[in-house]
């Protein structure tokens, strides 16, 4: 604590307590008679000093924190309360100043500020790193996607080229069949990466495209193909096997159920059911037993393999006339994530052949 006398020249200190002497390191005789500016120095904020001076001139009290210097030249944050002391007539007799060393508090603030700046910088750096990693990942995904698509196109072209140069009808048909399967997988791939959602795939959208391709590929107009597929999101992992299965069963029906230009229709239905996904492929053709023996039964065994892979159940029934294949497959976790997706049946328009 310090008292000054504003009535003496330069408002000198006239009284000081021991605590202040201890704080500053000066002896009493070194302080008394001098102005408080003796404690100020290079790091003292001039604007704060000006505020103190203004308050003193206006005879008002003020709270301020100043950098002050000890006798040994070290500095400390001096938290001061300065107030005028008036006599009974209201005239200012002295100014009274109470001090507290605020250095601890200040260094804490400074440390916090530095820590904050450091944290912000680190967050910025990490965000930049993450952003760069994401960009890299996106670029990589595009590149891989592009290569897969291009390779599918090359593979399909290879098959078709070989088919064109193959004389034997059986071999040519086999090559064309493979090209079609690759085509079905290509459609899946194209749809999987075009929507932006690379983890899921809409079976309905696929069926629409697939039926169009199938119908465009069959000659004559005696076979009608229609599809009624719910809008079902399935995981990318299930997309290819499901597409292959749908392709195999439908193509088989179109190829083998209607010999001798027999007219008929093939219906594809897919719905959500409590057990997962239920798919029906029905035709009103000659039926399994009457059909021309399937070359090697490849299509049928392919379907059974795929159903096993999907942990599903398949049933083949003669419906006289025709064949009915019913498949139930459980949906995996990723497919089920999106139950909210419109599951109302939105039947595709009939796509009869013209």
């Amino acid at each position, binding site marked *: 604590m310090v008292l000054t006398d504003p009535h003496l020249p330069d408002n000198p200190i006239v009284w000081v307590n021991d605590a202040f002497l201890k704080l500053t390191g000066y002896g009493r005789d070194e302080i008394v008679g001098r102005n408080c500016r003796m404690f100020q120095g290079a790091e003292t904020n001039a604007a704060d000093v000006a505020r103190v001076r203004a308050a003193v001139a206006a005879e008002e009290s003020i709270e301020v924190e100043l950098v002050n210097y000890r006798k040994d030249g070290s500095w400390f944050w001096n938290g001061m309360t300065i107030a005028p002391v008036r006599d009974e007539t209201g005239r200012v007799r002295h100014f009274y100043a109470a001090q507290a060393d605020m250095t601890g508090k200040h260094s804490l603030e400074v440390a916090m500020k530095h820590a904050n700046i450091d944290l912000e910088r680190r967050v910025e750096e990490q965000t930049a790193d993450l952003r760069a990693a994401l960009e890299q990942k996106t670029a990589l995904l595009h590149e891989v996607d592009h290569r897969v*698509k*291009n390779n599918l*196109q090359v593979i399909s072209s*290879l098959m078709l*080229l070989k088919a064109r140069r193959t004389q034997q009808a059986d071999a040519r048909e086999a090559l064309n069949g493979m090209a079609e399967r*690759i085509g079905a997988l290509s459609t899946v791939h194209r749809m999987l990466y075009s929507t932006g959602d690379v983890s899921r795939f809409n079976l309905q959208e696929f069926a629409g495209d697939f039926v169009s*391709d199938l119908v465009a590929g069959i000659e004559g107009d005696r076979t009608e193909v229609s599809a009624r597929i719910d809008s079902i999101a399935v995981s990318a992992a299930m997309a290819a096997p499901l597409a292959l299965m749908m392709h195999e069963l439908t193509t088989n029906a179109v190829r083998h159920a209607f010999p001798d230009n027999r007219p008929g229709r093939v219906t594809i239905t897919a719905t959500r059911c409590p057990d997962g996904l239920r798919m029906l492929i029905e035709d009103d053709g000659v039926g399994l037993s009457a059909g021309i023996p399937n070359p090697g039964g490849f299509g049928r065994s392919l379907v059974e393999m795929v159903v096993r892979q999907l942990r599903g159940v398949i049933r083949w029934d003669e419906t006289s006339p025709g064949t009915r294949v019913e498949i139930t497959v459980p949906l995996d976790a990723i497919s089920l994530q999106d139950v909210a997706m419109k599951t109302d049946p939105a039947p595709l328009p009939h796509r009869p052949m013209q």
Partner: protein
Amino acid sequence: MTPSAPLRILVVEDEVLIALELEFLLGDLGYTTVGVAGSSQEAIALGRDTAPDVAFVDIHLIDGPTGVAVARALSENPHTTVVFMTANAKRIPDDFAGALGVIAKPYSERVVAGALRYIAEARAGHAPTLDGLDGFRLAPGPDRAGPPH
């Protein structure tokens, strides 16, 4: 050229197998392939020499992702309808470099056939529809159906 003459098509594609099979497919569909180019230089030169009705242009060619520049050069000829044919549609600029649209790879024969039917009708001044042609997408913006003639 009379409206009934088959469209003359330039194929700009660096994958020889894809180009060859496409040539066969175009033949099957009744069109004429006037040339196959694997690089941008070749493509632009062939475009100048043959003045094709339609050019199918891949983005990635032997000399890099130069298909966009090829499309721009070829579509300078108002007679030529340029269509991208690529697995990398993200590389196509917003203005489509003057192209009418894009056929996504891997394409099916049906989509190629449908796109060509669309182009032929648009060139003849009709207003064709894109119904069922999921793999064929038009450039955005006003009608760019190509030159009527």
